[in-house]
């Protein structure tokens, strides 16, 4: 019996050894036909990506292997883990903040594409919207300490705005061609919405980043970009009256009944369902919603607006720019082929196809005339777009968290805007002191 177990143990060890050697064999076999592996998280675009991969293989003989990992949180962790284990694929996307993106670049995981973009009189670079490229660019003297360059290829662009239901507007006796253009007009609609037992505005404010987005829009509108950046740099405190005014807007919306009940526990998917099923008058959502709403309710009649202005001092800003970008692994053996593929993938034919099939805004500006009306409405506002990833300075994550949670507290009536401003500033000062 003992002898038998001994033999079994040896056999098991041999099996383990052979099993661990299998991936190596597979790699060698794959050398026969060049394969470029692309990791992404975009579930809605999977069939379109596969179709384009087939077309590229037919044209060039190079196989494109799109590997989907969702949800985006899990994808993000996978990319980080792969970076730590030096197992990144040839092409991948980074879903994190600019600071994290900078860390990927500094660690040597991302190829600088500036020289490729500049070939033939910047022809590749010029095909994109400037704001789409900006999120992947690091300029001279950037605060992240990254060598200047372009480190990503935008696949699409997005803007995050407000959408309103035209049928519900009519039901409320409102002109569907005249959505609110000022914050006061929006607040005034609250009573009307309440009396009609409708839901005002929905958004995924349980996933706090969308609160951050909304607050930043109004911060730009009320105090302007320079003051927002000065706040991030620690030169203006969050207890400044302008910031308190921004925080007060959330209280005003809650008091007026504009915000849906349970808004701070709402995930964006739920918000999308409520708007698509015509239960809410407004939604705060990104341009990706066009595809989502189309899938949920193809007959939904809605319009797109900038968040109504709360001040005439500065223009309204919205978050926007590149929706998703692909990066090339600087350590990949296939990096040249990967760049060629991305050049092909982002030319106007492929971009038009992607936009048509997935209802996302193309990053290539040459295809804008080929997109549906509602998408064009989202695209028109790209001039108002900004994003923390293009600001060259970034706020401490703990401060962002305190601000977002503080806004949640204002919405549920737990704290006043002044209290939240004071708490956020306290955390900001602590972080600044640590940094010093």
């Amino acid at each position, binding site marked *: 019996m*003992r002898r038998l*177990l*001994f033999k079994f*143990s*040896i056999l*098991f*060890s041999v099996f*383990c050894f052979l099993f661990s050697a299998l991936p190596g064999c597979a790699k060698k076999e794959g050398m026969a036909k060049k394969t470029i592996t692309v990791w992404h998280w975009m579930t809605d675009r999977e069939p379109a990506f596969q179709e384009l991969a087939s077309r590229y293989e037919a044209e060039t003989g190079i196989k494109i292997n799109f590997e989907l990992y969702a949800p985006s*949180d899990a994808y*993000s*962790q996978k990319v*980080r883990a792969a*970076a*730590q284990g030096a197992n990144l694929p040839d092409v991948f996307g980074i879903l*994190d*903040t600019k*600071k*994290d993106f900078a*860390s*990927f670049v*500094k*660690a040597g*995981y991302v190829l600088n594409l500036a020289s490729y973009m500049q070939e033939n009189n910047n022809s590749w670079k010029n095909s994109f919207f400037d704001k789409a490229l900006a999120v992947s660019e690091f300029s001279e003297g950037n605060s992240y300490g990254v060598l200047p360059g372009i480190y990503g290829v935008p696949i699409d662009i997005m803007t995050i705005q407000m959408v309103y239901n035209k049928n519900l507007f009519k039901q409320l006796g409102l002109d569907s061609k005249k959505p609110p253009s000022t914050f006061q007009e929006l607040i005034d609609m609250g009573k009307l919405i309440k009396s009609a037992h409708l*839901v005002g505005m929905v958004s*995924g404010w*349980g*996933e*706090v980043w969308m609160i951050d987005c909304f607050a930043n829009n109004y911060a730009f509108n009320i105090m302007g970009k320079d003051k927002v950046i000065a706040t991030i740099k620690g030169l203006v405190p969050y207890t400044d009256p302008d910031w308190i005014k921004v925080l007060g807007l959330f209280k005003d919306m809650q008091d007026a009944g504009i915000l*849906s*009940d*349970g808004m*701070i*526990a*709402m*995930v964006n998917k*739920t918000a999308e369902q*409520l708007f698509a*099923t015509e*239960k*809410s008058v407004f939604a705060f959502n990104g341009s990706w919603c066009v595809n989502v709403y189309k899938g949920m309710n193809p007959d939904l009649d809605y319009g797109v607006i900038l968040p109504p202005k709360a001040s005439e001092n500065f223009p309204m800003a919205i978050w926007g720019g590149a929706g998703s970008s692909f990066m090339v692994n600087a350590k990949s053996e296939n990096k040249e082929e990967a760049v060629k593929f991305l050049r092909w993938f982002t030319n106007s034919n492929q971009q038009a196809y992607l936009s048509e099939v997935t209802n996302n805004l193309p990053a290539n500006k040459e295809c804008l005339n080929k997109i549906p009306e509602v998408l064009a409405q989202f695209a028109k506002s790209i001039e108002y777009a900004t994003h923390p990833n293009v600001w060259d300075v970034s706020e401490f*994550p*703990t401060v962002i*968290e305190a601000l977002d*949670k503080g806004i*949640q*507290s204002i*919405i*549920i009536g*737990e704290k006043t805007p002044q209290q939240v401003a004071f708490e956020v500033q306290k955390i900001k000062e*602590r972080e600044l002191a640590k940094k010093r």
Partner: protein
Amino acid sequence: MRLKSTLENYLFILPAVVIFFIFYVIPFLWVFQLGFYNWDGILPTKTFVGLGNFKDIIFNDPSWWRSIRNAGFITFIALTLQNALAFLLAWACDRQIRLKNFYRLIFFIPPILSELVVGMVWGFIIRDNPQGAGLINRGLVALGLPNLVRGWLSDKSTVLTTVALIHSWKGFGWGFLIFLAGLQTIPRELYEAAKVDGANAWQSFTKITIPLMVPVVVLAAILTVLGTMQAFVLIIGLVGGEFAGHASVPVLRILASMRYSSRFGYACSQGIIFGVILIVVSFMQYRFSKKARQG
């Protein structure tokens, strides 16, 4: 010959030791090491900060301690309500009642369901707005208690209690199984002898069942504490996140540090502190039960 035999023995356990070492010991040690560094999880370089992360968590992070308090509350509800319910149902099923096998099956369904699914389904049942059916509030109105109607998952004063109750509903099946197994080990002769001596059902329960079930109760309590303190998926399913801190629990805080703030070192320190808290609580439970048994 003896050496060969010893080598053989080591060889037999080698695969298990290797797997254990790679997947348990190394990550465990690595977490300890990272706890002393500032690291964003991407850059190959890490900054040594000594006990800085631990100091920050203990003295400068009120949201961490709030999450511990919240988890403590959920655990308290689980220890009392959930385990009491589980014990009573197990006791009932241990007796000669009709359809007891059916009940055993039914009671074990909630624990095997996905926490996320349970969260989403209960969220739909409870929410009284276009997001849900509002069955609880409708039931209260039907019972003539409209003044109790509220947004159970959108009101800061009820959200944590609602989460704790749903967690208990989901978890009582485990306790039920453990208690039932424990009850079945008690010799029937003891009850028969007690009956012959004139003991009624209550006396049998307090003088035989309870004392003999103490070790099982301790085991169930330790498992409840360890399981409940680490719950977080259900909360995501129910309220999508931390609900302005009212539904925040330690694992969500660790996740936030790691995922949303890219502070891997800090997250590791939080994990270590959390682990120590769990060990201390479990040890105290064990000591307390040992004293109770001796007393």
